[in-house]
């Protein structure tokens, strides 16, 4: 097809502003699906996506759309809004020539709106702003358009007003896609260059690679080379998702589609790599993109130690469709064999754990997530440490550096006070502020990542009556006065409970932590001392009393079932346990280290 009639675009927005629902509308209005096939957020086809009502993975579809008597081919990528999946957005944008920036008319511009707009601008993409959800009673379409103007320095009149719910404005939006977003400008006769922007594993077809052809073309039967890995494959199938897979003989410059070539594992496909033709290689690859950066790490252990192989299988299977997950085997003194896993953020971590358990039936015990640290040793070497337990002996440590993120907070002007106070408590350094409108402002800070990873978002919400939103981006590592806090359970140091904390808050954290542990670890037949220590200095202690009485004295007649159930109930909710020495530590205890906030008792 002539590139003039092709448009490649992404839909980007803050979480929940209606990207997937707008994508549904595009499918419906183009006739790609019938009203009967229509269901909400059709492209969110993972169970978890449907349950949580969010997009986790970007999805690309192709639709044909008629405008003024001409048929256009529109390649659309619906992206996730959650900050953890920012990386998916950048991937999607690299495959496009333009994007729809969607803004909820009731919420206005929010943190990921800004972040995604920046991202699109950095990728030099044209943007069409879409103010969505105008049907809502609380919608403020004009104000929202003004905010968009302030953000993008484009006139408010350029906004398209839609309701993905009622269908209002969808035709205007389609027209804008065609008239205001550029057509691809590749050279169909040049050496073939196609960007791999996604891949997934399909039980029947093996690895399915999503590509955007920039120059030249690929045909079924062609031998191709991945320019990064240098691997060579033969193309067995090409096609487009419309949204059902529709086969094609070739894909040429400007087109988006899928490619299948007997590739066994997703690992051999590097998203961001360039595909060219074997024998007729392009001289240099497309820019590609940085690999995803894992922001949090935690250890996953099988509940029962015997399930270690099952856990490995489960993680491998999850990784087939989730290139951002990393894992490697580890052996903890306290917990035995498990995996150190890296994630894009807390939501990503939760999702991986849930998938491992649900889709692959393993019981997982998880340690508290930590951010990665860099340690400058006395010998001048710098090492990466992604678990407090791995920190070298303090005698060898020159300094500990922690990851720093640049955080944009969009908050109502009248809550600047509480937000600034919150930032101060979290060791943030103020950068600047910018007014988005008369009553909303963007505050920019640098935070230690560790301070925002867990409960910061909730705190921000309560400091702003629910209106505040945030986005963050890694900017580097910085040394601070950090120490390792060790926890001793029954006089044994439990490496999986160690945390790296700032010296100024270490004592409070230590006390608070063992108070929590005292609640989470159930009473045993013996007394269990708990201690928090920095180096050899114990900074807090607690004791878990021994069980005094736990016996069903009376006979329930012959109702043994009832008796058994009562006993089983004692273990309920403590299912995921790990034995450390003679002490059973439940899953919840490992997560106790996250409870930084809250008052001491």
């Amino acid at each position, binding site marked *: 097809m002539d590139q003039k009639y092709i448009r490649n675009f992404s839909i980007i927005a803050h979480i929940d502003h209606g990207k997937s629902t707008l994508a549904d509308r595009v499918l419906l209005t183009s006739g790609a699906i019938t009203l009967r096939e229509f269901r909400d957020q059709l492209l969110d086809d993972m169970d978890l996506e449907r349950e949580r009502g969010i997009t986790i993975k970007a999805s690309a579809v192709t639709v044909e759309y008629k405008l003024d008597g001409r048929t256009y081919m529109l390649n659309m990528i619906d992206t996730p809004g959650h900050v953890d999946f920012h990386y998916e957005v950048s991937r999607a944008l690299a495959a496009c020539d333009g994007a729809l920036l969607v803004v909820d008319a009731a919420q206005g511009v929010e943190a990921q709106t800004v972040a995604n707009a920046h991202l699109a601008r950095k990728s030099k993409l044209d943007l069409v702003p879409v103010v969505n959800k105008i049907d809502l009673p609380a919608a403020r379409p004009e104000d929202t358009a003004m905010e968009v103007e302030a953000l993008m320095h484009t006139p408010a009149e350029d906004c398209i007003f839609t309701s993905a719910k009622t269908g209002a404005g969808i035709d205007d939006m389609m027209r804008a896609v065609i008239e205001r977003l550029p057509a691809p400008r590749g050279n169909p006769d040049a050496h073939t260059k196609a960007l791999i922007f996604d891949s997934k594993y399909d039980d029947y077809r093996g690895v399915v690679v999503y590509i955007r052809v920039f120059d030249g073309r690929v045909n079924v039967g062609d031998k191709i080379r991945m320019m990064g890995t240098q691997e060579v494959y033969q193309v067995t199938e090409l096609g487009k998702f419309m949204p059902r897979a529709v086969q094609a003989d070739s894909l040429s410059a400007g087109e988006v589609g899928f490619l299948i070539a007997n590739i066994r594992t997703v690992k051999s496909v590097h998203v961001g790599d360039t595909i060219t033709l074997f024998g007729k290689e392009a001289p240099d690859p497309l820019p590609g993109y940085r690999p995803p950066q894992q922001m949090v790490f935690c250890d996953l252990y099988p*509940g*029962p130690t015997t399930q270690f192989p099952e856990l490995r299988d489960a993680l491998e299977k999850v990784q087939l469709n989730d290139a951002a997950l990393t894992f490697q085997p580890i052996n903890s003194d306290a917990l035995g064999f498990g995996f150190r896993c890296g994630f894009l953020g807390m939501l990503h971590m939760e999702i991986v754990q849930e998938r491992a358990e649900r889709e692959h039936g393993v*019981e997982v015990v998880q340690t508290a997530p930590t951010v990665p640290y860099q340690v400058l040793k006395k010998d001048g070497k710098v090492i990466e440490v992604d678990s407090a337990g791995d920190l070298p002996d303090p005698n060898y440590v020159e300094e500990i550096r922690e990851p720093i993120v640049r955080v944009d907070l969009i908050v109502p002007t009248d809550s600047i006070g509480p937000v600034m106070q919150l930032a101060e408590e979290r060791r943030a350094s103020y950068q600047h502020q910018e007014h988005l409108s008369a009553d909303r402002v963007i505050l920019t800070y640098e935070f230690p990542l560790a301070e925002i990873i867990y409960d910061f978002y909730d705190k921000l919400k309560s400091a702003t009556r629910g209106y505040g939103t945030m986005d963050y981006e890694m900017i580097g590592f910085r040394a601070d006065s950090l120490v390792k806090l060790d926890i001793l359970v029954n006089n044994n140091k439990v490496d999986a409970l160690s945390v790296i904390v700032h010296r100024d808050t270490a004592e409070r954290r230590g006390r608070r932590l063992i108070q929590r542990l005292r609640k989470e670890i159930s*009473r*045993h*037949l*013996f007394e269990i001392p708990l201690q928090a220590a920095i180096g050899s200095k114990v900074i807090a202690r607690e004791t878990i009393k021994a*069980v*005094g*009485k*736990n*016996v*069903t*004295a*009376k*006979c329930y*007649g*012959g*109702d*043994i*079932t*009832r*008796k*058994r159930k009562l*006993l*089983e109930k*004692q*273990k309920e909710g403590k299912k995921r346990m790990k*034995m450390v020495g*003679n002490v059973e530590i439940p899953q919840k205890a490992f997560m106790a280290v996250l409870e930084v906030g809250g008052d001491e008792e």
Partner: protein
Amino acid sequence: MCPDSCKKKPAEVLPAPAAAALYVHVPFCRAKCRYCDFYSLVAEPSLARRYVRALRREWARHRERLARPLTSTFVGGGTPSAIPIELLDDLLALTGELCDTHGEFTVEINPGTVDASLADLLVRRGVNRVSIGAQSFDPGELRLLGRIHDAGQTGSTVRLVRDRGIENFGLDLIYGIPGQDVSSWRRTLGQALDLGIAHLSCYALSFEPGTPLEDDLRAGRVREVDESVQRECYELAIDLARQAGLEHYEISNFARPGRQCVHNLTYWHNRPYLGLGPGAASYLDGQRRTNVPDLAAYLAAVEAGLSPPATDECLVGKRHQAETLMLELRLIEGVDRRAFASRFGVDVVEAFSSTISRYAAQGAVVVTPDRVRLSRRALFVADTILADLLAEVSL
């Protein structure tokens, strides 16, 4: 219903010798005690009549499942002695008429419901063991529990049955009653043992949800007795019962040699039995069945010729083993390893190695070449260990 797995593999459900123990539940009481959550209603003669009739029908349907001779029959409740005497007569005749011999034939009696004619009836119907719900000898404690009798009636009940030649009688006592201290418990134990009892059960009071006493607890009108005091009471019972010649044979039970409760031993050895009446449980052919505790539903079903409504389950494999352990470890002598191995084909210590070795290292479980048992100091925290044994299976 039985899960499919057990239908497909009937062999796993075995061994299941025919039941030789019978339990009959009498779901009536004179008045409801304040701590009680057993299924019983305050007696109403017309219902009791229908109930005994229904029982006859349920019994007729199931009696073939019992091996002869019966090793034990246990008529409990509720309060069997709370129904009109002629109905109790019918009920006791019922079990007798269909069996050659009762083996141990126990009736539970409440000291507030006993007179000479009741005692005569028991003897006439061949009852050879009586379990008396004394609970306490302290008037204040009996009041707090909402019992309908006083300590004196317990003494006269003992005399009535003993005078008629029933030597095998036992008392139930409760400790951990709000306000009770060790010395009051010592007096109660002393008075009980002075009666020359053959059997003693000592239960710690538990506050069951929905009972008036639990309401009192929650409203702060009564306080739970301190754990350490309860432990002291328990230890005292063990010591005094031994001194009086009663052997400690189960967590809460003591008996003169040869006077252990044969019926309850059936439960603790996880052997089959048949239970009749609403709320009664049966264990037949590897299947547990508990009749729904609802007299009206029971009557309606049985009078219509149907089985009474019930819930059931069928444990196989390791869950069956764990359940057996849960029961046998309540016995002071513990589990006979050889018997366990011949029943399940595995050594109990190997099958439950992680929990057993852990608690053995803590001195809570004693493992010998022949037996596995709880140590004395573990008895009072037995459920912690039993819960871990059960949890080992669900993993």
